[in-house]
């Protein structure tokens, strides 16, 4: 059933000195429960804006977001966010940061002992149980991001929203965290929307890759279904023909957008984009 999370005709205008700036135009997306969706696109195409609208941190000017057929337009712990800059409270330890979320979400539902167990369980999921009492300035960037993920998971969200969570990390740490995330996704079966710049990451982790057109008035350009069995091992997949095919598809979409308008107009890659947005792209170039 594809209607767990639904973005319907989502558009947003930002007020500027020169009049309203249309960042997103009629974004339509249906996501099934337990699906891992990646959002990929060039810088400034509005990926973070889409995520913020789903999170409720921005309000759509037109259209809306439905979660389990109910409209959501305010932030809440059922759509937990993992921010690009970990956003841990610097005066609290790792344990206390997760505790803040748990206390807020499960007040009255879990006893103190249960809460403590739950917090430690989530930190174990991200392999941070050894650094419970460390403050953010005492742990590395990768560890901070792990704690951020643990905090989001501890809210038991219906949808996990991740805004370029591994963007600020080096390649090795990124690889470790991607593996951890796949483990967690296999374990918990949660619905995930992840923004990324990294094509390999998108193909490795996702069930579907949503490729966005360039801003302004960005919308969904193409959606790619990644039919690779799980669990996915990166070393094995490096030689897999299907993996490379999917990578090729995404790269073609992203870099063909850079080329001349006539070619984009005739290319089969733009078949899912509405004709008006192609015309706007023509004006852009």
């Amino acid at each position: 059933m594809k209607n767990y999370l639904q973005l319907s005709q989502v558009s947003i205008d930002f007020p500027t000195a020169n009049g309203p700036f249309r960042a997103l135009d009629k974004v339509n997306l249906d996501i099934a429960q337990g699906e891992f969706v990646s959002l990929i696109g060039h810088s400034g195409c509005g990926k973070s804006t889409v995520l913020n609208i789903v999170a409720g941190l921005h309000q759509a000017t037109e259209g809306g977001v439905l979660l389990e057929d109910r409209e959501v337009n305010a932030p809440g712990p059922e759509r937990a966010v993992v921010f690009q800059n970990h956003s841990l409270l610097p005066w609290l330890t790792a344990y206390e940061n997760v505790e803040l979320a748990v206390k807020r979400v499960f007040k009255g539902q879990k006893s103190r002992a249960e809460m403590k167990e739950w917090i430690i369980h989530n930190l174990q999921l991200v392999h941070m149980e050894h650094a419970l009492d460390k403050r953010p300035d005492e742990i590395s960037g990768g560890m901070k991001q792990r704690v951020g993920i643990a905090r989001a998971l501890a809210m038991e969200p219906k949808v996990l929203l991740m805004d370029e969570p591994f963007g600020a990390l080096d390649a090795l740490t990124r690889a470790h965290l991607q593996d951890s995330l796949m483990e967690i996704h296999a374990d918990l079966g949660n619905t995930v929307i992840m923004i990324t710049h990294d094509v390999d990451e998108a193909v490795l982790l996702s069930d579907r890759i949503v490729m966005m057109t360039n801003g302004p008035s960005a919308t969904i350009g193409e959606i790619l279904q990644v039919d690779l069995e799980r669990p996915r091992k990166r070393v094995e997949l490096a030689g897999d023909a299907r993996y490379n095919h999917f990578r090729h598809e995404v790269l073609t979409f992203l870099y063909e957008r850079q080329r001349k308008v006539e070619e984009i107009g005739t290319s089969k890659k733009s078949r899912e984009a509405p004709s008006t947005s192609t015309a706007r792209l023509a004006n852009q170039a």
Partner: protein
Amino acid sequence: MKALTLSSISQNPGRLKPTPAQLAKLGRAVLLPLIAISLFLFLWYNAAKLIDTSLGQFPGPAEVWEQSTNLVTEHQQERQREVAFVARQEVRNAQILARNPEADVQIRPYTGKPTFIDQVGTSLITVLSGFLLASLIAIPLGILIGLNESVYTAVNPLIQLFKPVSPLAWLPLVTMVVSAVYVSDDPAFSKSFITSMLTVLLCCLWPTVINTAVGVSNVSKDLLNVSQVLRLPVLTHVFKIIVPASLPLMFTGLRLSLGIAWMVLIAAEMLAQSPGLGKFVWDEFQNGSSNSLGRIMVAVLVIGFIGFLLDRSMLFLQRSVSWDKSAVLR
């Protein structure tokens, strides 16, 4: 290079023998101020000899030292007189009780003049009361202003209007209001104490309000987003996120406020005749004895020293609550 501090020595006694580099650093830290102070004393001594006022020669370092020892001796003598006074009363009361066990006896309080040391104590109590009360008002106000753009726009002109007002301008108004409002047969605090305290409050409020507001409005958007996703209730948001995040700027405001409070207090005491250091200076000036200038100079140095101690205490407090290891607190 680890600093040669008491804690580093106690943790590792083998390090008691300092390296040449540490010795040099310590030497510089001690010798350079000593040289500056000696130079200052030398210039003071020579300049004092040249200035002749109607109250005698301007006091040099030697005279000031002599006066400071006098003030301490006077305080000790006064304390002894008080003890003797109370003792005499107790003897008389015992005699009365021996003759008539039912008699109503009491110990009358000593009514001697407050000494210099007493006055230092009064000043400290007044400034701390004024400062604490001001902080209790300023911090919530600052938080409110920082959180809400509309409140800021509304209140800012008023803050800018009252911030530059001198304590000497507030004093007559405060005195009249206190005289009219604070009427009681057995007041817990003297009117002059209340007047000085309120004047200190009116003048030292502003740095804390402004700095707290700036700190609150500059809390990182990321942290505010976290609070939104968690749907934290307003009070939790303020106490768990806003206050810790804006603590550094809040303390900057508090330190500035305390410095201003101490300066304002001396002026306020002079005019309100509250029995503190300000009154001491004023009385000595009115007194016009040959010792006066020396004693006033002692007061000046003590005022400066106490101001320095107050600031250091705030710094110590700031260091103990600071969570930001990258911040350098001086």
